[in-house]
C-alpha cells in the first residue's frame, strides 16, 4: 500500500480546520463586545470533529420557493452554539465577556499550534520515509 495521507495525518488534519474556524468565531465575539443584543457563540468541538470526520453534513436542496430552509436550531454549521452567559442581565442583551473570550482565544491558538506541530512531525516522518535517510 502506498502512502495514504488520510491515515498518515490522522485526526490532526480535522482538528486544525475546526480550530481555525473556532478562531473566527471567537474573533467575531470580541469584535462585537460592544454590540447591543449580540449573543456570544462558540463551537462544540466534539460535534464539529465528528462532523468533519464523517463529512456527513445534512444538506437539503430547495427545489421550490415554498420549501423551508432546513436548519437546525444550532445554526447552519454544525456544532455552533450560543454561550450561556454567567450573569443573567447585562443591561443591553450582550452576552460577550471579553476576558473569557480572550482567554479562550489564547487557549485555542495554542491548541492550533499544537495541532500544527503534530502535523509537522507527521510530515517530517513522511519526508524521512520518502528520502530514505
Amino acid at each position, binding site marked *: 500500500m502506498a502512502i495514504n495521507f488520510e491515515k498518515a495525518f490522522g485526526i490532526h488534519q480535522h482538528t*486544525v*480546520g475546526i480550530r*481555525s*474556524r473556532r*478562531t*473566527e*468565531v471567537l*474573533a*467575531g465575539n*470580541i*469584535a*462585537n*463586545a*460592544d*454590540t*447591543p*443584543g*449580540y449573543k456570544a*457563540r462558540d*463551537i462544540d468541538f466534539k460535534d464539529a470533529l465528528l462532523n468533519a470526520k464523517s463529512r456527513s453534513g445534512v444538506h437539503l436542496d430547495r427545489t421550490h420557493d415554498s420549501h423551508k430552509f432546513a*436548519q437546525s436550531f444550532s*445554526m*447552519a*454549521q454544525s456544532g*455552533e452554539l450560543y454561550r450561556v452567559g454567567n450573569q443573567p442581565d447585562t443591561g443591553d442583551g450582550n452576552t460577550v465577556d*471579553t476576558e473569557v473570550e*480572550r482567554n479562550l*482565544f*489564547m487557549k485555542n*491558538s495554542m491548541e*492550533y*499550534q499544537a495541532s*500544527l506541530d503534530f*502535523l*509537522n512531525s507527521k*510530515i*517530517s516522518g513522511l*519526508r524521512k520515509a520518502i528520502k530514505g535517510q
Partner: protein
Amino acid sequence: MSLLRVLDVSATGMSAQSLRLNTTASNLANANSVSSNREETYRARHPIFAAELNRAKGGLGSSVGVKVQGIVESVAPLNQEYAPNHPKSDENGFIYHSNVNVMEEMANMISASRSYQTNVQIADAAKQMLSRTLQMGKS
C-alpha cells in the same frame, strides 16, 4: 480560509471602535459649547453598533463583524443658564450649554481604546497562526 476572515472581522471591530473614539473626541471638544437657542446647541453624539448581517452567498457563517448602524444625538436635557451679559444670550437672557456628560465620555473613551487594543491583538495572533501554517512542512 477561516484565519483570513479573522482579519476582516477584527478590522470591522477596529473601525467601529475608532468611530466611537471619534464621536467621543467630538463630544469632549464641544463639552463647553454654548448657543443662544435650543435648536443650535450641540448634543452628545453616540454611535449605534449592530452585528453585521451575514453575506448572502455564504449563508450563516461562523463569524460576525460589527457595523455602525448610525449615529444618534443624546436626548438628555440641555443645561440652560441665565447669563444676560453673555454675548450669546437670547432675548430672555438665557444661554444653552451642550448636554455632554464629561465623565461618561471619559469612561467611553477608555472602553473604546481598550476594545480597539483587543481587536489589534486578535489580528496579530491570527497573523502569527497564519504564518505558522504557511511554514508547515518546510522544516
